[in-house]
């Protein structure tokens, strides 16, 4: 069965994923909104930057974050100056790395949802006296609900499933940075296969359930035809 260390890792994993998902929605929503509507030449560049974690080996992202957030790095200097110390091998550092690593899984579904909604409902709202901010909350958010759900689920699940970035930036510190994927690695290294089975099986079941929900329940939602 699960050891106290396993439970600690589980708890930590869900804590990191929850906080990271909230942060990703907070920063990803305006970013996705901008990407969905801008005609700026920068759109392509920003799209590419957001999508980078999809193709980069997690170790590359982890390596650069480690350097940047280290005592000699740009981010490290700022955090030290702010009296926060340096972020690598801390819980906040793990959250920052997770946010960057999982961002495309939040931005892309949101961007797609916003693009699908298009200009028309916003124009209708404007002719009905709604300011742009008002129409974002009264029209765009409800119409993009499936997009927000998809983004949250994917962002959360992907954060739970990360390994490389965690190992590079967070390390393997119990109750601080040791998440489930790292704990499984520890079990396997120690040849504790039955413990590894419990956690690995649990993650497998979790990931499958998440994807099943995405492909069945949400598929039928009218995000593809928001306007009748």
């Amino acid at each position, binding site marked *: 069965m699960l050891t106290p260390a396993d439970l600690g890792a589980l708890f930590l994993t869900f804590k990191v994923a929850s906080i990271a998902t909230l942060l990703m929605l907070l920063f990803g929503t305006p970013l996705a909104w901008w990407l969905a509507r801008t005609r700026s030449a920068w759109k392509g560049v920003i799209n590419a930057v957001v999508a980078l974690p999809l193709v980069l080996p997690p170790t590359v992202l982890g390596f650069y974050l480690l350097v940047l957030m280290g005592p000699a790095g740009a981010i490290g200097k700022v955090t030290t100056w702010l009296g926060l110390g340096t972020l690598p091998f801390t819980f906040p550092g793990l959250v920052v790395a997770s946010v960057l690593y999982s961002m495309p899984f939040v931005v892309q579904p949101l961007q797609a949802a916003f693009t699908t909604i298009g200009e*028309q*409902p916003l*124009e*209708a*709202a*404007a*002719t*009905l*006296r*709604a*300011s*742009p901010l*008002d129409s974002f909350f*009264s*029209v765009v958010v*409800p*119409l993009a609900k499936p997009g927000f759900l998809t983004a949250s689920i994917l962002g959360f699940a992907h954060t739970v499933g990360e390994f490389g970035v965690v190992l590079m930036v967070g390390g393997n510190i119990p109750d601080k940075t040791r998440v489930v994927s790292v704990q499984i690695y520890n079990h396997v290294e120690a040849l504790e296969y039955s413990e590894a089975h419990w956690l690995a099986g649990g993650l497998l079941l979790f990931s499958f359930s998440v994807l099943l929900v995405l492909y069945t329940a949400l598929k039928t939602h*009218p995000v593809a*035809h*928001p*306007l*009748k």
Partner: protein
Amino acid sequence: MTTIQARFQLDYGDFKLDVDLKLPGTGITVLFGHSGSGKTTLLRCIAGLQHAPQGKLEINGSIWQDSERGLFLPTHKRPLGYVFQEANLFPHLTVRDNLHYGLKRIKQNPGTVKLEQTVELLGIGHLMERMPERLSGGERQRVAIARALALNPEVLLMDEPLASLDFKRKQEILPFLSRLHQQLDIPVLYVTHSQQEVAQLADTLVILENGQVLASGPLPETQSRLDVPLAQDREAATVWQATVAEHETDYHLTRVDFAGGSLSLPAVDAGIGTPLRVQIYARDVSIALAVPAATSILNVLPATVTGIIDGRDGQTVVQVRLPRMAEVSQSAGNLCDQAGNQALLAHITRKSALMLGLQIGMAVYVQIKGTSILN
């Protein structure tokens, strides 16, 4: 009387809009033109949905845009109602919530009385709890019209509200629009490419082509202008405002009065004094130099020729005006310098025009073979 002044210039490279219009503050003004003529762009500029870099727009004395002073009121601050080609209802809200969406957001809430009247006028009371996806195209468009009107706007802008509907649905909505026409006291700007809708709804007609105003003015006047391609169209027609004057029940006829005299129409089921729109196709009008001694045509009216041009396919398009005073009518075929205000178009063959020796200023008789009543 003029309460809408709109001047816009914009340049998209392959499309330029350059208009300067003064429009009446009452009735329906139809912006008519083919696709690409700029009619929808003009309407969107008036709504502020598109921003013409050069423009001045004044509605009822308040300035909505003045590019010289750098003033541009965003759409949500303009007291207008807008009906889109696709109804554009919010799919996540019921009909009731769609109707209340705008009402919740205006300061001077006109109350629900206005909304209730509008709902009744458009016959959508039974649809209030439905979601938009469960409405027919016609119902959706009626809800969209009610949603725009509920705000008690100072001007109603309609962008081809019937274009996406099939013939049957159009026939379902046109009567509502005609009723609106009689009950609304605000100006309506109505974009369409349908001559039928022009005939049925317009008081004022603006004809647009390639982003410019080809002609604008009262409907019969603008319709019968010879310098506008519309006059040569096979479906060219003139619409007269008339009122029911007398019923000749023995003959199953109704006599109506219009600015240029009176007409006999097949019996109309409407009380004396009821306003009617009577449409006369140019192909149904023929011209004679003397009162025809024996003819089955009831409507023979004295008129003055005020314009002649060659049309297509051996046709001549003749513009005449009515009425012509009795003493001048003695000299039919002669020239006279007096012409009435009510214009009418006639399509005759070029051969007939030559044989009659038609000239501008000539006194003639028009014979109207057929009429249709539009409301």
